[in-house]
């Protein structure tokens, strides 16, 4: 009984140390366009940058078009030959791997022409297109840190996940006992 109490204490200690925000292990790769360049950020789920992670970039046909290593901040920049949908694969040491798909900037450019009808006649279609592009670029730039934060949060397990996992273990234990009881009674 004493042992159980102490184990519970150890557990609550572990749980509290988790709330302090020390998270383990998984890598995440976050690519984005910056003008004609692609920038890639690579980090572990606790936010530590992945240094010297190998980055490979594939074009839509699956052809390798770029390979490189992340720097000390876990970032890397390169200029792809064409603006197209790229697949970016990160391999860090110890068998960690993550991949992400990056669509070309302004992938929904086609929509610009369609909505131009409603514009007052004083502004030409071309202008509207240019304005929309500029706005889109500005918005994308403003949203970038928010999206990066979202990616980070997604990579980080929540306390709810931890407690849920322990619940699963308790459930599986019950199941194990159930089968043991059936076996023991049967035999």
């Amino acid at each position, binding site marked *: 009984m*004493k*042992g159980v109490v*102490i*184990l519970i204490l*150890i*557990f609550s200690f*572990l*749980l509290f*140390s*988790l709330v302090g925000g*020390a*998270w*383990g*292990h*998984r*890598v995440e790769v976050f690519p984005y366009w910056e003008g004609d360049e692609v920038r890639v950020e690579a980090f*572990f*789920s*606790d936010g*530590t940058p*992945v*240094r010297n992670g190998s980055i490979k970039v594939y074009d839509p046909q699956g052809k390798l078009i770029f390979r490189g290593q992340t720097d000390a901040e876990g970032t890397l920049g390169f200029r792809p030959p064409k603006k197209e949908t790229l697949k970016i694969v990160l*391999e*860090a*040491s*110890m*068998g*960690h*791997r*993550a*991949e992400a798909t990056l669509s070309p900037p302004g992938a929904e450019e086609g929509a610009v022409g369609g909505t131009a009808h409603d514009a007052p006649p004083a502004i030409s279609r071309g202008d509207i297109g240019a304005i929309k592009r500029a706005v889109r670029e500005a918005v994308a730039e403003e949203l970038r840190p928010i999206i990066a934060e979202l990616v980070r949060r997604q*990579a980080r*397990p929540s306390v709810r*996940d*931890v407690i*849920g*996992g*322990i619940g*699963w*273990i*308790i459930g*599986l*234990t019950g199941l*194990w*006992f159930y089968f*043991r009881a059936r076996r*023991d009674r049967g035999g």
Partner: protein
Amino acid sequence: MHISEGVLSGQVLAAGAALSAAGVAVGLKRTSNEQIPEVAILASAFFVASLIHVPLGPTSVHLILNGLVGLILGWATFPAILVGLFLQALLFQFGGLTTLGVNTFNMAFPGIVCWWIFGPMVRGRRPRLALVGAFFCGVLAVLGAGLLVALSLYLTGKGFEKAAAAVLLAHLPVMALEGILTAFTVAFLRKVKPDMLGVKR
């Protein structure tokens, strides 16, 4: 120590799964009814330990506790670690479901080997010697897991030396920490609940 999806070749994945399945089968068979709650508690500890980040060394690493789990559970280490890894893959996306077998073997097997080697010392009459045994059990279980990870990568065609060097260098602080942690836990259990270690009174 969690190898992600899409890194290893099919053969390595299959071999890992087969070895782990055998280990789990032995573990399930050898676990007595009285031991089941211990398996559950250590599976939980293992599951949570991967979230305890060790902020030392060149990259991001975490506690593994496979030495401690091995020391207390013996063969039941396999089912405990399988369940822990399964939930980590499911809930945290650490590792992956296809690599579950390989990862289970890589962590459980060194734990069991250390239990074979150091178990008698830890259960023995001399408390000092038990502490030393527990320390090395914690250290070498992590070392063994690192070597197996490097071996898995090597069998898939990555350079063994480079992979091994990276894994071992990153895990030096973890090894030290786990050694100390395992020693403390053993000292504590010998006082409070020696039958958990199988100490004869």
